[in-house]
């Protein structure tokens, strides 16, 4: 017989099998987040232990839309890019014209390899004329360093040393104001400024991933917990709640924003040749600035446009019914496969069944009629196959005036 002679406590058992543990880093906010994590629903974000949800993913979503939601963005990859050539360097690496990005401003951008395939998208913060912060999904240090050959610029990864928080929702401005960040009302969308905090400074930008009124705050890691406390205290009466990624992911979908390696596969991750995407193929063609100087992928993008070699298009879909079409196949005339839904939900704000999908051109581009999605829905242990009509619609799916209102509204 092979049974255990003595029953060990479950803790001891776990300890005896420590090789099964997945080691994930905690962020500087981890003690506070762990204390709030009722659901214990973790995922791996760039090597960090990040919550899918903390207490209730539905209510966490509504915290974004009706209160103020606090989301830890520390695992986001961050690079400090500084030097006399920082602007020229970033202008060469990224798609948009960095010379038009003024100090104290932020823009959403993307960057490509030689073949014009998107390596990642992210936000670029211009902290001063010569200092930038580039935030992204994936890590890119070797690429950035090799791109820096011939430029007088210093590039340093600061993912670990800089902690980040997103504070999003209608009361977010009031929370910051009440926390004593004097002058924060002056920030317009995509503005950033520095504010004193705990003997140091915090960089606050009016940015976010929710399509709502919101801010992002960056502090040195050692000031992270005091910043959290400061916001939680001032936000107590304004419904501030910590949230996980599931809630944020819904908000971003309503805002029509895409996520690298969810809505498209980044060039260095793609194994299959037809998974690579050019900016025009994932809705980022607007970033490509052919008037500025040379940038990585320019030649290839120009060539693909001229030779009409763009094969895909990323679109917003509105789907009849109320069943989310998560990862559903998109059909033309109900039988020809033309694409795939990468994100979908019933939007409580838009009151519509929305989705983001990648379609093979010309579908979604010039041919937008007669598109269908095939949704499998489980109903009492039986799949029901629904063929639902899909309409190509503009993104964002929701547009909230409070996001851009100046001064920001006090709720």
């Amino acid at each position, binding site marked *: 017989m092979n049974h255990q002679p003595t029953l060990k406590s479950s803790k001891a058992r776990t300890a005896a099998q420590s090789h099964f543990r997945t080691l994930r880093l905690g962020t500087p906010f981890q003690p506070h987040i762990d204390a709030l994590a009722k659901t214990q629903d973790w995922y791996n974000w760039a090597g960090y232990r990040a919550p899918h949800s903390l207490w209730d993913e539905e209510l966490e979503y509504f915290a974004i839309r009706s209160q103020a939601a606090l989301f830890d963005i520390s695992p986001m990859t961050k690079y400090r890019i500084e030097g006399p050539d920082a602007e020229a360097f970033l202008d060469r690496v990224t798609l948009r014209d960095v010379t038009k990005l003024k100090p104290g401003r932020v823009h959403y951008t993307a960057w490509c390899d030689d073949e014009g395939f998107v390596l990642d998208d992210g936000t670029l913060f211009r902290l001063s004329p010569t200092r930038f912060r580039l935030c992204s999904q994936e890590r890119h240090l070797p*690429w950035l360093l090799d791109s820096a050959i011939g430029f007088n610029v210093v590039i340093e990864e600061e993912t670990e040393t800089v902690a980040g928080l997103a504070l999003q929702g209608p009361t977010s401005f009031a929370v910051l104001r009440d926390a004593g960040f004097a002058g924060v009302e002056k920030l317009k969308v995509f503005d950033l400024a520095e504010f004193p905090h705990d003997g140091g400074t915090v960089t606050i930008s009016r940015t976010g991933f929710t399509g709502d009124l919101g801010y992002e705050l960056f502090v040195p890691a050692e000031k992270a917990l005091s910043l959290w406390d400061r916001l939680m205290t001032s936000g107590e009466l304004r419904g501030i709640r910590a949230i996980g990624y599931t809630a944020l992911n819904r908000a971003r979908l309503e805002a029509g924003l895409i996520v690298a390696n969810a809505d498209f596969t980044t060039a260095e991750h793609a194994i299959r040749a037809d998974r690579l995407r050019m900016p025009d193929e994932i809705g980022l063609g607007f970033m490509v600035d052919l008037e500025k100087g040379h940038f990585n992928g320019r030649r290839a993008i*120009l060539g693909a446009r001229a030779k009409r070699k763009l094969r895909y298009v990323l679109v917003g879909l509105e789907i009849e019914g109320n069943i989310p079409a998560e990862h559903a196949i998109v059909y033309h005339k109900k039988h020809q496969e033309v694409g795939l839904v990468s994100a979908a939900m019933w939007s409580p704000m838009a009151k519509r069944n929305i989705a983001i999908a990648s379609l093979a051109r010309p579908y979604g581009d010039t041919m937008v009629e007669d598109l269908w999605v095939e949704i499998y829905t489980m109903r009492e242990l039986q799949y029901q196959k629904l063929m639902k009509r899909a309409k190509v619609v503009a993104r964002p799916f929701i547009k909230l005036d409070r996001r851009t209102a100046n001064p920001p509204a006090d709720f």
Partner: protein
Amino acid sequence: MTSFDAIVIGGGHNGLVAAATLAKAGRKVLVLEAASEVGGAARTKDFAPGFRVSSIAHVLTRLHPDVVKTLELEKHGLQIARGDFMPSVALSKDGPPLVLHGAYGEVLTGSTPSEQSVWKELRAQLMRYAGILKPFLSRRPPDLAGMSLAETAALGQTALALKKLGKEDMRDFLRVLLMNVADLLDEQLADIRLKGLLAFDATLGSHLGPRSPTSLLGLYYRLAGETGGAAGAQMLPKGGMGAVVAAIRAAGEKAGVTIRTAAPVAKIIVEKGRAVGVALDSGEVLRARTIVSAINPAATMLDLVGPREIDTGFIRKVKNIRMKGDAAKLHLALDRPPQFSGVDAAGHKGRLVIAPSPDHVERAFNPSKYGEFSPEPVMEITLPSLSDPSLAPSGACVLSAVVQYAPYALKEGWDAGKPKFLKAIMAQLESYAPGIGNSVLHAELLTPADIEANYRMPGGHWHHGELQADQMLMSRPVSGWSGYNTPIDGLFLAGAGSHPGGGVSGAPGLNAARRIIAMKG
């Protein structure tokens, strides 16, 4: 001001061939040469009062027949006659040398009858296999991304040539293609002098020893060259290598090429992804529809164009081109002709090789891997003034030698290492030609560091990039861009750093010019 259709940067032989070919196709061409005279590493230079020598390249082995024909070089003073073919002499300290006569050993003397018959077979096989590769020399490498019908047909011809070898031969060709030369020689030959000579020729000019994988390719590259229609033949051009360049230059000028010397280019001007002109060191700006760079590919892209105009992935590839030279050049002004032991008068006019065995070559190579020069170097020696008395004062003699191995990045630095290396070379020479040391009036040793500084060849590498399997054909100068055009529209590469590679062949220059014409550049 005259305007030009094309500006060629670099008046080395490839630049001149490209310029002349373009001019013959009706373009107005300007050649800009940084030095005070054209020719690059194929010049005849004074190195001591009354003594002249082919400065870097000294033996003509592969001037491409298409270049000779296209530019009608024989009309412009180039003389190639079968009588000029020189033998290769494998020197021996003890006993008579072994000699390959005619075009790379049509006749072998100095060895046993059995070795002679084995050599005959091996030579025929080497020539057959090199012949398969030969057609690649005069075309742009196969473009994996998309080939024209003509290019696909040309590749089909190669497949057909392979098939024509017959089943056994084709299998053997594929078997040996990437072998090291020492193993192949051991399979077939017995005489270590002959094996030493072939091992030397296979590794000449590269950072490889005979036992390094793929070293056989170097021998194929050598034998894919031809002179006067004879594969493997070699000669010393009358008047030195500068005379070959003079003929190319004359052909170019006849076709209307303008040449400006002492005009170093500081920058290639790029506007909206297109090369539109050059700026000289002097600040002068010259514009043209097509810019052809016949200098080093890395220097072209990193220094003249600059990384800001090029994609990061391409920069990575260019920076990874291996181009650290491992060969030095020795010039001696001697007060009398040297006497190499056991070598007759005809032999002294030949190519004298000190490489007594493959093991010796391998041992000479070993220290270079670790940044040290060979204590007992191997070398290829010519005495050009014996057949061309104009190169030296009467009764005196010029010695010109390529000496290996001399790593570019010498650990102790070449300032300290050069006198020591010269001493090692002279000791080696003394043991094969006793008394030579006493006849030296002047010695000039060009290390890779000197070659880099004096000839604008980064790394002092005469191929402008190691000529090894991973840097050949569609990977030369970098993968994806082997067709002479570059990511910069209107900018072309035409130097030895491009396919097929170095040696005085003119093939990169000719292929580049053909490509430019085909692209209507």
